[in-house]
């Protein structure tokens, strides 16, 4: 235990703790959009495309500080173009074709990155490594969090209408297509930060579990944002304090904590839990 207290005094530990809180919060905040749109599968393909995206970014521009950001943007394009390709060649259903497309892209990305001699980096991107975050990475995470909170809060009213009833929203003059692109862009941004925290395999959990938990606790769509943010942030901070004494991998611990919180809500939510009073 004394070790741990000492560890907390180190700048590295403090930076990681802040990173956990900020990345958990911004991902939790944005997870409301994913859950309300019921598009977690789409986001799953997006997080699968992160690795080949980064590989392409490094091939194109070389390894640099913002290669992850560039990689995530390329990943978004890959998913967009892949979906377009699939919808044009519609003999196969979308799930089947996208599964083949994305696993192949993932495998190719892996081969390229290993070929470039980036074994250690690949491990970080696959499973996350908050401890390896530099100051700039932390700043990027702050900025992404701020963009997420400000833009969603400012546009909350039209966003919720468009998510609930896109056709009525369009008749009311809400630019639903533009909002969809905005949501997609925002998700790509928070993926960049969660990639460093929990890695490509687990980003989906960080981008779904917090709001999914809130979904079981509230009847107000607007609470999904702040509630999801708090669950994501506090869950990640709790995971930080658990992982050191237990000797668990931090990124994995974050997802386990969030999964446990979801399970608790699933069972004990007063209104929608398994054990709720009156089942109708």
């Amino acid at each position, binding site marked *: 235990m004394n070790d741990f207290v000492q560890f907390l005094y180190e700048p590295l530990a403090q930076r990681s703790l802040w990173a956990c809180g900020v990345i958990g919060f911004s991902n939790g905040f944005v997870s409301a959009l994913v859950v*309300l749109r*019921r598009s977690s599968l789409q986001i799953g393909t997006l997080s699968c495309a992160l690795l080949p995206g980064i590989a392409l970014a490094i091939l194109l521009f070389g390894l640099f500080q913002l290669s992850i950001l560039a990689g995530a943007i390329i990943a978004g394009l890959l998913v967009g173009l892949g979906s377009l390709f699939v919808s044009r060649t519609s003999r196969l259903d979308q799930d089947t074709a996208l599964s083949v497309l994305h696993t192949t892209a993932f495998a190719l990305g892996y081969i390229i990155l290993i070929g470039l001699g980036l074994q250690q980096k690949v491990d970080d991107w696959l499973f996350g490594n908050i401890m390896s975050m530099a100051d700039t990475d932390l700043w990027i995470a702050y900025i992404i969090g701020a963009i997420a909170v400000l833009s969603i809060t*400012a*546009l909350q*009213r*039209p966003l*919720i*209408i468009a*998510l*609930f*009833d896109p*056709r*009525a929203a*369009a*008749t*009311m*003059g*809400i630019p639903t297509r533009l909002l969809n692109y905005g949501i997609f862009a925002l998700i790509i941004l928070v993926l960049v930060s969660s990639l460093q925290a929990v890695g490509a395999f687990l980003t989906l959990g960080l981008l779904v579990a917090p709001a999914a938990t809130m*979904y079981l606790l*509230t*009847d*107000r*769509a607007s*609470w*999904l944002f702040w509630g999801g943010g708090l669950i994501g942030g506090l869950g990640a901070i709790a995971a930080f304090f658990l992982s050191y004494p237990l000797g668990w991998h931090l990124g994995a611990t974050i997802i386990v904590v969030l999964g446990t919180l979801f399970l608790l809500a699933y069972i004990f939510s007063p209104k929608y839990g398994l054990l709720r009073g009156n089942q109708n």
Partner: protein
Amino acid sequence: MVSHTQEEHICWGGGHHHHTHHRLELRGVSAGYNTAEPVLQDISFAAECGSTLALIGPNGAGKSTLLNALAGLLPIWKGEILWNNAPLTAQRHEIAYLPQRSEVNWQFPITVRQLVEMGRYPALGVWRAPCRHDEEIVDKALHTLGLHDLQKRQIGALSGGQQQRCFLARALAQEAHILLLDEPFTGLDVPGSEALATLLRSLAEEGRLVIASHHDLVTATKIFDKALLLRRQLIAYGSAADVMTPDNLNQTFPGV
């Protein structure tokens, strides 16, 4: 503030007839999707507030396309859609669109009141906070449709008829004159249909124009006072009783 002028035209639940001259007019409207041929061809008709209009035709006849074009969800290829002699696209607040029941995510975390409050969006915009006037309009809409006691319920915890009334209440809160409904009677039982028919008629009598796609020929004349038979082109339009003749129906539904 702005909404006061709109509100004066509609009387709320008073039940007395209100003769306005709001008029919807389509002139030679063609519309379609990504195909070369338009789905709707050269549709022209006019309808006034105070009536309920059924859009009738087989699958693929263009009922949804016409609703979408009226709602401004689909750009029209040719012709014009006018509301009081001015383009309808510039008066979007006049349109309330009610989705088909199967399109709605009933588990969405939203209460009845929040759903109705969405109707204030065209008046409030993105940032303006609702004032007392807005709250009163929402209250009135809830009362008019008998939803006041249910306003804190999540929308999934309502009966089918109540759910339909939520969306009608949102249309009232929007103070729109034109109500567009996509197959509103699908999935309702007989008492539910009758209740909704009465409701739609009273909403029309208060000065609105109710337009709904409808697939049941038997009930159409009972529910709606006007009918428009559609098979890509307009087959017939007029009072429901006059229009629903065997001849016209044969033309609309060939081979049935």
